[in-house]
């Protein structure tokens, strides 16, 4: 049985369960599958992987040889954590009686899992596109208003897949192989296309808006599921293909900075978290760009903990949305009176993302930041370091303070609701426990054991006096700034508004240009139609005047004219024959 489970890509287990879910009308049976399938996949990975690279599922399709299963020390980290996230998502959504959500969640999780274990770029492409197609249903479950956002999400992700395939074709023509390896470079054939494809999915600056557009409009459960997989799959692909590519350091640093400003202005808490997600991905992209063993360890560890604490934060806001009906800061406040357990879990998530000592990101984010200083020299090294510290203070602002403060404390909104359902509390409780265990002294070594280079990871000691002292300086200073700004009334009030971002270019400018072009075309068509009518009428009149019984051709012509014309034609014919030969 175990041999059978480990013989093929574990993503297929989830996708098969997803198809079954689409057919099962019984709620509890579906829910069993939603939790059991990722658990089974996790079991298969734990038993099947012993530290050596596994290559299985090699199939021939026409002239192509596809490797559908490749497990190594990099992909296994994503594999484990995707399965854990799948189980937590299943528990969190236990109350939701929706066949579409259950089915698409499983297929989506399975596709993401399948993609990280893909050994070649065609297999990667298939799973890559499948993540987009299966996940869009989770957005559409958000209601009628989410339809347009879902369509934009789908279009952007399909484009990403097309770029990936184009890059793969160009790369394979040059290298003669479709293997998805670290031999790919940005400057090499297909490299730019591949990076763009991954950049769209990971939310490079100016390619990021699908996240803030679609995630907050998804269903309560859908947003939690979506937050875990797509972007981390792209992080994996970048880490596999472009580790050490210097341009990623700068792109990642910019990614950490700009979402911070948008997150402060946003009123919708799930949108704040979507910007926060973008900012955290920046740390990972930056680490990939640095590319040292320590940086890649930090990235893998950060992916593992980030999936869980970001899910935890989305879960807490999802629970608020489920009970209160809104996640807008302007409508919330004082909810700790009604939802104290959710408040505690949210605070654990906030402390984890802010990298407080003894909470999840303290170890992993520090590893990435430290790797910037310890990396071989690159241009602007200290500027990048300062940018990451700036972004860390920004994380404290939007996720460490804003999310819990304006939701659960701040001024009492007077709203009294029930505490979150038991299944949501259980999922949040397990995620909180994970965030604490993997950061605790003695616990973070478990995380180190999973990292791509555990020996190198063991050399990083997070609980040193200087690290704790300086990290606490950063966090307390940010808290002090918050308290002071609140006291003097300089902290902005939460207001309902649409904040313009780069998506304005296609949602407003692009749409208006398309509408204008359409209107101009309609007008031009009308004018062209009139001109065409006039032209044909004029031509018809001229022809009639020339050839009709009353026309010029019917008039009697002098015989001399016919003789001249015949002679001319004879001369032309003779000349053609002469020069033609």
């Amino acid at each position: 049985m175990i041999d059978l489970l480990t013989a093929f890509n574990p993503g297929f287990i989830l996708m098969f369960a997803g198809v079954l879910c689409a057919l099962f009308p019984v709620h509890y049976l579906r829910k069993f599958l939603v939790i059991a399938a990722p658990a089974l996949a996790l079991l298969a990975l734990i038993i099947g992987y012993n530290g050596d690279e596994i290559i299985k599922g090699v199939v021939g399709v026409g002239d192509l040889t596809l490797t559908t299963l490749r497990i190594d020390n990099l992909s296994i980290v994503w594999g484990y954590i995707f399965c854990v996230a799948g189980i937590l998502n299943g528990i969190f959504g236990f109350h939701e009686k929706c066949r579409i959500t259950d089915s698409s969640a499983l297929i989506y999780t399975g596709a993401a899992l399948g993609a990280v274990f893909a050994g070649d770029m065609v297999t990667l492409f298939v799973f890559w596109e499948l993540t987009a197609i299966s996940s869009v249903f989770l957005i559409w479950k958000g209601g009628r208003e989410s339809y347009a956002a879902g369509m934009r999400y789908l279009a952007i992700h399909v484009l990403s897949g097309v770029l990936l395939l184009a890059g793969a074709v160009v790369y394979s023509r040059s290298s003669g192989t479709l293997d998805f390896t670290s031999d790919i470079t940005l400057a090499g054939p297909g490299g730019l296309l591949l990076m763009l494809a991954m950049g769209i999915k990971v939310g490079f600056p100016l390619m990021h808006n699908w996240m803030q557009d679609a995630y907050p409009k998804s269903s309560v459960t859908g947003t939690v599921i979506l937050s875990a997989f797509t972007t981390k799959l792209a992080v994996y692909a970048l880490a596999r293909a472009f580790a050490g590519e210097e341009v990623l350091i700068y792109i990642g640093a910019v990614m950490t900075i700009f979402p911070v400003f948008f997150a402060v202005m946003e009123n919708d808490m799930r949108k704040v978290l979507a910007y926060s997600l973008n900012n955290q991905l920046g740390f990972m992209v930056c680490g990939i760009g640095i590319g040292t063993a320590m940086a890649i360890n930090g990235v893998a560890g950060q992916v593992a903990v980030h999936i869980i604490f970001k899910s935890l934060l989305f879960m807490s806001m999802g629970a608020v949305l489920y009970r209160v009906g809104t996640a807008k800061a302007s409508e919330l406040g004082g909810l700790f009176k009604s939802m104290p357990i959710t408040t505690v879990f949210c605070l654990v998530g906030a402390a984890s993302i802010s990298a407080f000592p003894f909470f999840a990101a303290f170890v992993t984010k520090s590893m990435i930041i430290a790797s910037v200083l310890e990396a071989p020299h690159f241009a602007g090294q200290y500027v990048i370091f300062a940018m990451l510290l700036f972004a860390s203070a920004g994380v404290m602002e939007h996720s460490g303070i804003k999310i819990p403060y304006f939701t659960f404390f701040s001024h009492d909104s007077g709203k009294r609701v029930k505490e979150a359902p038991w299944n949501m509390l259980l999922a949040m409780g397990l995620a909180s426990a994970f965030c604490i265990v993997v950061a605790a002294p003695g616990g973070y070594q478990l995380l180190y054991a999973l990292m791509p280079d555990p020996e190198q990871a063991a050399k990083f000691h997070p609980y040193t006096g200087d690290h704790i002292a300086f990290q606490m300086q950063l966090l307390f200073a940010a808290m002090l700034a918050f308290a002071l700004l609140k006291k003097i009334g300089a902290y902005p009030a939460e207001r309902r508004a649409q904040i313009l971002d780069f998506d304005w270019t296609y949602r407003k400018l692009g749409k208006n240009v398309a509408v204008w072009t359409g209107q101009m075309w309609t007008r031009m068509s009308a004018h062209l139609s009139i001109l065409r009518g006039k032209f044909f009428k004029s031509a018809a009149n001229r022809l009639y005047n020339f050839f009709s019984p009353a026309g010029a051709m019917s008039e009697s012509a002098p015989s001399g004219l016919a003789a001249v014309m015949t002679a001319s034609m004879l001369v032309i014919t003779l000349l053609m024959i002469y020069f033609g030969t």
Partner: protein
Amino acid sequence: MSDPHIIENDDHVHKLAKPFLFLMSQKVKRGFIIVPIVGLIISIIFGFIYPLHHPSPIDYAMPGYSWAVIGFVSYAFVVLASHPLFKLLSRKEDYYGEEEMGIEREPDEPVIHVAVEEPHHD
């Protein structure tokens, strides 16, 4: 009080939250600033005792307290920058014509509203 859900008393506070209701008092809110001040002072003292193993030029310029300055300035800059940015970038919620109502849902059970003395959000 035309809304049937509005009630004057606050019996709907969760039993686990009752011991922590003091967190909402004005006294606690005003005094909260003490926490980061004390924490910051302690962490700066520790910063001098345990200097950074891998200092950057910023840390050489401000030995022992560099990250405190970075944290404070960064946070304040982000928040203060949000004022002009909000004026520049904010539009009505239905600006895109799609109505961001997708973000709001019918709660699974009716929300009870209690009368609160303090105004909502400053």
